[in-house]
């Protein structure tokens, strides 16, 4: 079953990045932005959507005097991502098996 929230290309990339890290690791917003080659506004909007779905946690804090935003995947997000990737693979497998 497709997960409509994760299915969107940028959100799938965000979840791929966070899912590759360990469960306790956070990814810095600026590092994620350069990794995905996108803008602050675009990334921020997609992160909000994922956070509302409970797929990621967003932590805003100060490191010294500098504000820092970091994100990580929640267990629910990891599960949803794994299921969605399995769904995508099943589409390819079905197409391969078709006569």
């Amino acid at each position, binding site marked *: 079953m497709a997960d409509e929230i994760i299915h969107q290309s940028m959100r799938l*990339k965000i979840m791929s*990045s966070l899912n*590759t*890290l360990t469960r306790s690791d956070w990814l810095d917003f600026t590092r994620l932005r350069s*990794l*995905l080659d996108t803008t602050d506004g675009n990334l921020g909007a997609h992160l909000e959507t994922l956070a509302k779905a409970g797929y990621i946690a967003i932590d805003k804090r100060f490191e010294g005097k500098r504000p820092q935003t970091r994100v990580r995947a929640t267990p629910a997000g990891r599960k949803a991502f794994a299921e969605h990737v399995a769904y*995508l693979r099943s589409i*390819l497998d079905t*197409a391969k098996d078709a006569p």
Partner: protein
Amino acid sequence: MGTERDEASALLADVEGIEGRVRRILIYASISDFLFLWGVIWAGGFAGNYFLRPWADAMWWGLEAAGLIGTVVIAFLHHRDAERRSSFVHVRAGITVAAILGFGSLWVALTHMGWREQVTFWPTLLSFLLFLVSLWIGRALALAALGIFAVSVAGYYVAGPYLNLWMAFATGGSMIAGGFWLRR
């Protein structure tokens, strides 16, 4: 069906691409920690050779012991963090480094290498190893390795009586700079 399959294929390719980039960042972070550690030890040791000659031997024993302990601690921390990666990867990495150090030590002994050659040999061997690893990982590591290699070899030819200082500041500095370069 064809369109759905094409879209699924493109999305899965995106997932694999991003996962590869994140893994590369994690590997670079591990390597940079080792470069910071050994860059500082290298810089401290050779600065000691130049400025504190009578105590240099004792200082090197202490620095090398600290380096080995630091190496084990860094390896342990990264191993603990990499809960989803195979622990065999770390065992293989450890065996590779031990084999290279053993190989280097053997040829230092067999060729009765002089002091100048030895102090140039070790950072070039390290950068050679990093360059080989970079062929599987990425260009940034290759550039860091080539930088350390070039600075070390240049020192052998141009530093003359100041080779200790060169090794401390240029080679040690290039290792630390390499660590920052990988984390940029």
